[in-house]
């Protein structure tokens, strides 16, 4: 668990981060979203003390981060940034081994870890271990960057616009990978982005920042249905808010018993996908199945439409 307790950062007279309190539950993804200059990156960088807070405390699992030497603190926290920051003079394997080596892991353990991480990110170890960053595609570089951040099995992973430099299709895949890896490892993730769709897709909870302050914290549905102020509602979109709302809710939440014809939808699909499938097929209802294909019931057009309404 990460607790930010009345954290402030001033440069001269200007408060870049102004009295922010925020709690990130263990094993969840918190997305901090805001326009450029909102202080979101500074807030993130205070968690691993790349920026020292002017005021306030930051606790990780109850321990004040100010009590640890900076480099020790950082070795226990994964860090991935836009443009990946891979060491150009080190191979993929050496890059991933950076923190484990700093922590003086056994060589065998490091090697094992490298192969496991490469495999987890769909990078064939035999092919990629000895490549240099410049020999990789943008998407591969980004995956290695995240793998490197996760190398020493950190309980916390900080990500600063990690997918900002990727094209839409690769970004989509990278987000999917991150969700899968996070679910499997149970890492606590704090991710900074300016992209609201990314925030809704990835965040268990989303914090909206502007002018150094947190305007609202809540689940994506909270932000869509009960925006705290005009700024948040403008940021979450006005025209397609209903569609956004559908896209953050899973089919599983509106399954009702009963039969339906047609190809089954997975329970993890979003209601937006369900609506699309319903419109496309012209059916009033479609069957829903779980990951193993076992039928769970059906989703009706009326149920989907009801979910897109505020309240």
């Amino acid at each position, binding site marked *: 668990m990460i607790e930010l307790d009345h954290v402030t950062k001033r440069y001269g007279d200007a408060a870049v981060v102004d009295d922010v309190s925020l709690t990130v539950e263990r094993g969840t993804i918190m997305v901090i979203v805001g326009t450029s200059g909102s202080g979101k990156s500074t807030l993130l960088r205070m968690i691993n003390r790349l920026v020292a807070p002017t005021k306030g405390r930051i606790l990780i699992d109850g321990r004040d981060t100010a009590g640890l030497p900076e*480099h020790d603190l*950082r070795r*226990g926290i994964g860090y991935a*940034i836009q443009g*990946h*920051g891979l*060491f150009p003079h080190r191979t993929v394997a050496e890059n991933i081994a950076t*923190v484990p080596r*700093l922590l003086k892991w056994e060589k065998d353990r490091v090697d094992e870890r490298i192969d496991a991480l490469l495999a987890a990110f769909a990078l064939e170890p035999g092919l990629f271990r000895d490549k*240099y960053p410049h020999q990789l595609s943008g998407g591969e570089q980004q995956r290695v960057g995240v793998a490197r951040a996760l190398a020493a099995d950190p309980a916390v992973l900080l990500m600063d616009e990690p997918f900002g430099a990727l094209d839409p299709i690769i970004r989509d895949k990278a987000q999917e990978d991150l969700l899968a890896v996070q679910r499997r490892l149970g890492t606590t993730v704090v991710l900074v982005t300016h992209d609201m769709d990314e925030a809704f897709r990835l965040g268990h909870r989303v914090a909206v920042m502007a002018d150094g302050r947190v305007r609202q914290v809540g689940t994506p549905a909270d932000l869509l249905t009960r925006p705290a102020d005009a700024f948040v509602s403008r940021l979450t979109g006005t025209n397609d808010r209903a569609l956004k709302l559908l896209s953050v809710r899973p089919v599983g939440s509106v399954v009702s018993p009963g039969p339906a014809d047609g190809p089954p939808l997975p329970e993890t699909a979003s209601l937006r996908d369900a609506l699309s499938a319903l419109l496309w097929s012209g059916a009033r209802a479609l069957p829903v199945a779980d990951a193993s294909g076992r039928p769970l019931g059906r989703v009706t057009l009326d149920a989907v439409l009801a979910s897109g309404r505020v309240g």
Partner: protein
Amino acid sequence: MRVATALRLALVALLAAFLAAPDWFEPVFAPLTENGAPAIYRQASLLQLTIAHLGTVAVASLAATVVAVGLGIFVSRPAGADFLPLSRAIVNVGQTFPPVAVLALAVPAVGFGTAPTLIALFLYGLLPIFENTLAGLRQVPAAVLDSARGMGLTGRQRLVEVELPLALPVILAGVRYSVVVSIGTATIGSTVAARGLGEVIIAGLTSGNTAFVLQGGLVVGVTAVLIHDGLLAAERRAMAARASKA
């Protein structure tokens, strides 16, 4: 590439032969002399002069490299930040000090001989290496430094494991340039009685013997070209070794 290598080997062989047995080359230089003046410099062994010349350059360049790289690292750390603007300004105007002037001004401090030459070569050699150290450290991408810091590398680890390796090619280019310039500049040291190949050229100038001037100049020029190419090849080999290391 093959032809160039063969050419260089031939040049090395020719230089070695000339330094070992200059008398064999008497017929080549004889047409340049007048009134039966000697065609080959014999007051001192050309080989020994070359060794003394290169020794002076090596000592000065080594000291300049150590000091310049150290200073370059220092002013690029937070602790040395106060010194950065002046360092840049000095780098910018430092080359305007002609080597002759530096040499002449060193004489009152340390007297005649090799010492003022060493000082002048050292001071003159500092600038390109310092400049390249700064440039090399500055071109390390910000994202790389940020992630190094974020992963918990200490300041020292960042310097040794990330910044210096990435700046190395630029620093080595500065050293190479500095050494080559020093080989030429060291000849001027002979005007303040330093031992070196300049002696041969001065003897030629004072006695109007073009053969001496030419052989002194050629040995210096050929040595400089060969050392330049040698250092370049060594740099490339080191980079290639690093890049292919698993």
